[in-house]
């Protein structure tokens, strides 16, 4: 065997285990999902081809419509808030607190990131309890009347959004902080010589340089929001009514509560297409930036 062939064989052997697993558990399932989405399938009987029925049904289903609406609202409520908050906190940390105290504050803000959504949801469900919950106690202390956070259709989704922001900010903060630390100091010194104020420095130097990071933070934020399940399942279970159901909850219920695998796959394909579209838009933004350079 020549050296080249030997090397090629070795290479294939090294990647084979991962390739087989990715093929079986990621690539094949995508096509299966696509196929099942055109069928009526309850796992027990063979899948029965129904054409576009699942998709037609899906767009008329009030549950799916509410889930899509909630997911969109969830994106609108969480992504801007967590992005702005992470950026502001990171900017202050990088500007004034490049020391141990700053490091400690960053570590503390990362703690919600490492907790599972289940742990976070469990704690917050109790904190947000209407009668005697910690948050309402604080509100009462300031003579504000108790809010039925999780039990009212007005606030159930909002409550989940607040907890999601609380949990995500630390993550995006770390990404922003690394980005700001990577900016050359000379840029700021030159700006200072020219008499730029710190706000001008921030808007004219920091923000433009951080643009690719902002795209990343926003795209990730949107993609995570589309996939939200754990928090909503734990805190409200989708209720009251349909007020906090999400797309993934719809998939879960259809597949594992009602055993409508085909219908659930149609919803999953819808989710996949949404995520691909977001990724493509992000890519286009990046390309534009690269060409501008």
């Amino acid at each position: 065997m020549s050296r080249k062939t030997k090397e090629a064989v070795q290479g294939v052997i090294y990647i084979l285990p991962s390739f087989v697993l990715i093929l079986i558990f990621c690539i094949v399932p995508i096509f299966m999902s696509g196929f099942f989405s055109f069928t009526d399938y309850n796992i027990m009987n063979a899948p029965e081809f129904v054409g576009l029925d699942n998709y037609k049904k899906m767009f008329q289903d009030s549950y799916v419509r509410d889930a899509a609406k909630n997911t969109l609202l969830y994106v609108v409520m969480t992504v801007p808030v967590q992005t702005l908050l992470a950026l502001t906190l990171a900017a202050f940390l990088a500007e004034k607190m490049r020391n141990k105290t700053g490091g400690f504050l960053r570590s503390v803000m990362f703690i919600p990131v490492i907790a599972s959504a289940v742990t976070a949801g469990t704690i917050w469900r109790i904190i947000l309890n209407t009668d005697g919950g910690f948050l309402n106690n604080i509100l009462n202390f300031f003579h504000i009347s108790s809010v039925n956070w999780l039990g009212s259709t007005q606030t159930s989704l909002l409550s989940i959004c607040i907890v999601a922001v609380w949990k995500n900010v630390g993550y995006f903060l770390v990404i922003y902080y690394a980005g700001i630390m990577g900016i050359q100091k000379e840029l700021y010194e030159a700006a200072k010589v020219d008499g730029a104020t710190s706000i001008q420095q921030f808007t004219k130097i920091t923000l433009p340089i951080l643009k690719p990071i902002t795209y990343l933070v926003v795209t990730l934020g949107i993609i995570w929001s589309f996939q939200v399940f754990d928090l909503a399942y734990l805190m409200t279970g989708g209720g009251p009514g349909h007020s906090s159901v999400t797309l993934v909850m719809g998939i879960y219920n259809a597949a594992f509560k009602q055993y409508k695998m085909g219908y659930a796959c149609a919803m999953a394909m819808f989710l996949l297409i949404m995520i691909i579209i977001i990724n493509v838009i992000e890519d286009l933004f990046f390309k534009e930036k690269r060409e501008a350079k």
Partner: protein
Amino acid sequence: MNEKKQKWTVFSILGLLLLILFAAICIAPFIYMAIMSFTKSTTLMLHMKDINFTDFTNFQYVLGKSGFIRALINSIIVVFCSCLFNCIIASMAAYGFTKKKFPGREVIFRIYLLTLMIPGQVTMIPVFIMMNKAGLTNTYFALIVIILNAFGVFLIRQFMDSVPDELLEAAKVDGCPEYRIFIQIVIPLIKPVLISLVVFTFVTSWNDFLWPLVSTSDSSMYTLTVALSLLKTQYQTNYGLIMAGATVSFLFPFVMYVFLQKQFVEGIALSGIKG
């Protein structure tokens, strides 16, 4: 010296207040959780007399009576195996992709990267159907095998460049067999990135909820997240017990975070910067 002194304006004091306030909001729920887990009261009102930090009744009860201990052991087994399994398979693949030339190498790697875009919720149903038909639901295998994804390969591949080709060549010339080159030279050199991958895998696997929820129906196979999510239906308003369960589930990642902070932030933060 004077130049280095930072100016504290009203603006920056507001910033500092915001930082401290947010840090407090980040940590407060966990402190509340820890305190609640030591109370016997079933009301939400905290009275100092109800709090007894030497009383581990809630923990004993949760771990003993509710099958929580079984879930804890399951989680430990699943997490340990997924970390090991992910590290071995991902470093093999990363080594193959960077140090071995074979036809189709670039294309296959592009495919790996594309799979990173696909959310688990989309592949979950067909994977469940396959596992179900193969009789593999309610097994450790089902819980572990799902953890591998292309992210580990991608992460280690970036680090492989720091392994010098000359070193591998020299070993080969000396007649060192291929498997020993990989195990004795490559693996020790990529140790730092393997730690990041372990941390990342640990957190993903420990915190995973949807897949264990779907793939286990037998309560003896539940993982911690599933068991914790069920406590609220089991114990209703016994908040002390529920919080004890939450504390147990949070303790492991938290202790690891305290010791491996840098790797945590790297391992987890990097997961977003892919593709």
